[in-house]
């Protein structure tokens, strides 16, 4: 069966009443947590992981996909309407979007963001449909050494791209890897790093780590530097786009999509680089001097890039089991809860699930467009939630999610310690995503490493035994040392420039 037929069957699965309801629940929740500062899709999906014990896998993934896409839509509302800088991937949107809003063009800014997200999300999901089977065909012959090399590439790329300082990215990754080590070794039944606590034998649950690093860490960090002024939200009516704005928006949407999808699909590509590139491209192409004062192209392009990269991230996740963002890592953990392993085999073994999820992305995009255009004023109201209540509520839900797992006080103590770690990481500028990816991908990297070395009878050379592995490991080294080389090069250049002037 070709992928078009499979996709049609996916639609048949996604369009049942129950699954439409789960999709609607997902996109609504996703938009809500995207709009609210302090929480995001990664933490929301993590908090909802326990539902995997009771809900059908297809329905659960349709809901998770909705949360994932919804978070992207919601984030743009916040960056356009709130007068304060936000997280880095939506910061670019804020550059022009916030200025548009202050000039009284909030409705147009929100509309171009929402419609652009819809266009980009739909096109990028279509690209996912085309690209995924190709990657699967290529990856079907991957051996253990190739998967190990892929994990190494994800580790190094994420650590070096997400932070300005490579050593801080790697430190974050290391924290995640160590957390992933705790518990019983699956192959030999040996307990590792459990400190003799029986509660730690099963390992530290993903929910505890994600909620600790994201929710509690964020709440503590915000408490340490709270803005005490009430949130400054720009009022807005129903979002709409005039004819002239359509004409100015559609090209940036397409360009943003073209930039966002491939970067999202690359390990360590993420959303930040393509949104920035899209902004830079639109600025260069713009006529007149509106840029910097609220040009609609500067919202349309980066928002499209942001959403397209979210779809791109799903390519390595579904076809290789390789998460390249924190949310993708949590989604991977959700697959594992069901005993499913994303990768080429997933498309063979559970086509209904995969294609149902992909089909639901199209459905979710339509829902999000409907939710975001007329309901913009409602989401704007959400931004007014008094911050003390918001962060107190976030901590209570974090505690609830963790306590509901096993009703264990040990889990709550671990949650607190991870919250402190999350706080320290934010304070000192360590990115959180490498830790989450390290924790979830680390144990899989170990399994593949041991498998590869067992096949090679202990010969280390087996790790570079296939051309794919060699290329991937070379790319990892490149990812690790590029920032260093760039720094050295920049220093040499500034020295060359400043040296003569100093000698005068």
């Amino acid at each position, binding site marked *: 069966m070709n992928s078009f037929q499979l996709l049609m069957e996916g639609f048949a699965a996604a369009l049942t009443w129950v699954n439409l309801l789960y999709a609607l629940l997902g996109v609504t929740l996703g938009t809500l947590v995207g709009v609210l500062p302090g929480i995001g899709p990664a933490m929301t999906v993590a908090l909802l992981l326990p539902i995997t014990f009771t809900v059908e896998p297809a329905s659960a993934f349709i809901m998770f996909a909705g949360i994932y896409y919804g978070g992207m839509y919601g984030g743009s509302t916040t960056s356009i309407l709130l007068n304060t800088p936000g997280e880095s991937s939506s910061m670019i949107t804020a550059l022009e979007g916030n200025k548009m809003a202050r000039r009284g063009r909030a409705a147009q800014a929100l509309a171009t963001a929402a419609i652009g997200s819809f266009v980009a999300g739909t096109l990028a999901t279509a690209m996912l449909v085309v690209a995924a089977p190709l990657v699967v065909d290529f990856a079907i012959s991957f051996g253990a050494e190739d998967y190990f090399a892929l994990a190494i590439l994800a580790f190094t790329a994420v650590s070096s791209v997400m932070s300005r300082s490579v050593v801080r990215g790697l430190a974050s990754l290391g924290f995640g890897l160590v957390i992933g*080590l705790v518990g019983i070794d699956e192959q030999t039944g040996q307990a590792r790093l459990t400190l003799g606590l029986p509660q730690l034998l099963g390992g530290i649950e993903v929910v505890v780590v994600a909620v600790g690093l994201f929710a509690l860490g964020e709440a503590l960090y915000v408490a340490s530097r709270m803005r005490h002024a009430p949130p400054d939200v720009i009022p807005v009516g129903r979002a709409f786009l005039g004819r002239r704005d359509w004409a100015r928006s559609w090209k940036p949407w397409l360009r943003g999509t073209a930039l966002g999808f491939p970067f999202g699909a690359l390990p360590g590509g993420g959303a930040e680089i393509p949104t920035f590139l899209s902004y830079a491209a639109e600025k260069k192409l713009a006529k007149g001097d509106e840029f910097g004062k609220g040009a609609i192209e500067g919202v349309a392009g980066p928002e499209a890039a942001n959403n397209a990269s979210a779809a791109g991230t799903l390519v390595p996740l579904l076809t290789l089991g390789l998460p390249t963002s924190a949310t993708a890592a949590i989604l991977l953990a959700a697959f594992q809860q069901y005993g499913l392993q994303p990768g080429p085999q997933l498309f063979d073994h559970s086509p209904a699930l995969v294609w149902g999820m992909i089909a639901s992305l199209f459905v979710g995009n339509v829902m999000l467009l409907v939710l975001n255009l007329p309901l913009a004023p409602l989401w704007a109201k959400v931004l007014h939630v008094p911050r003390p209540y918001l962060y107190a509520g976030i901590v209570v839900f974090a505690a609830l999610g963790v306590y509901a797992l096993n009703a264990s006080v040990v889990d*709550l103590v671990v949650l607190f310690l991870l919250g402190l770690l999350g706080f320290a990481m934010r304070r000192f500028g360590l990115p959180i995503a490498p830790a989450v990816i390290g924790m979830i991908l680390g144990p899989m990297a170990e399994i593949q490493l041991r498998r590869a070395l067992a096949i090679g009878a202990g010969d280390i050379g087996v790790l570079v035994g296939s051309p794919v592995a060699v290329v991937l490991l070379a790319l990892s080294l490149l990812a690790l040392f590029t920032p260093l080389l760039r720094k050295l090069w920049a220093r040499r250049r500034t020295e060359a420039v400043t040296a003569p002037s100093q000698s005068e």
Partner: protein
Amino acid sequence: MNGRWWRPELILALAVLLLGVFVVVGTLDVSTAASTLGLGPRFFPMLVGGAMILIGVFYIADVLRGGTGDPEESEDVDADAPADWRSVLLMSGIFLAFVAIVQPLGWPLAASLLFTALAIALGAEHRVRAAILGLVIGFGTYLLFVKGLGVTLPGGVTPL
């Protein structure tokens, strides 16, 4: 604090190094005899521990040489504000107190207290409103999760 080289970030960098040492030392007692095929359960931890020690050394060197990361920016954070350690300690204390009372007191009351105390610590102006909201959230989540979703949470002293 003393000396120009001292910066709070040094604690985190040291923690990375010590965690690496801990991983290496902590897995020394894991017996390798249990594995008959390929590598034992100690190999990967040694790799991770060794890498952490290496990263820790580089991190410490970077901090000592004056390197910095970018503190995270967020909508509700005033990046230029000096760190308010009192709030962080207060929140930590409240959370740990919650951990201590949640078993004996039960989820509904403990969660109500947690919400109210945190909201007030974070600067909620109306204490009564915070307390009412806390009760609504504490009992609401209990009813929703226990009665609605079948999750087990200890009710403690509340007769629900």
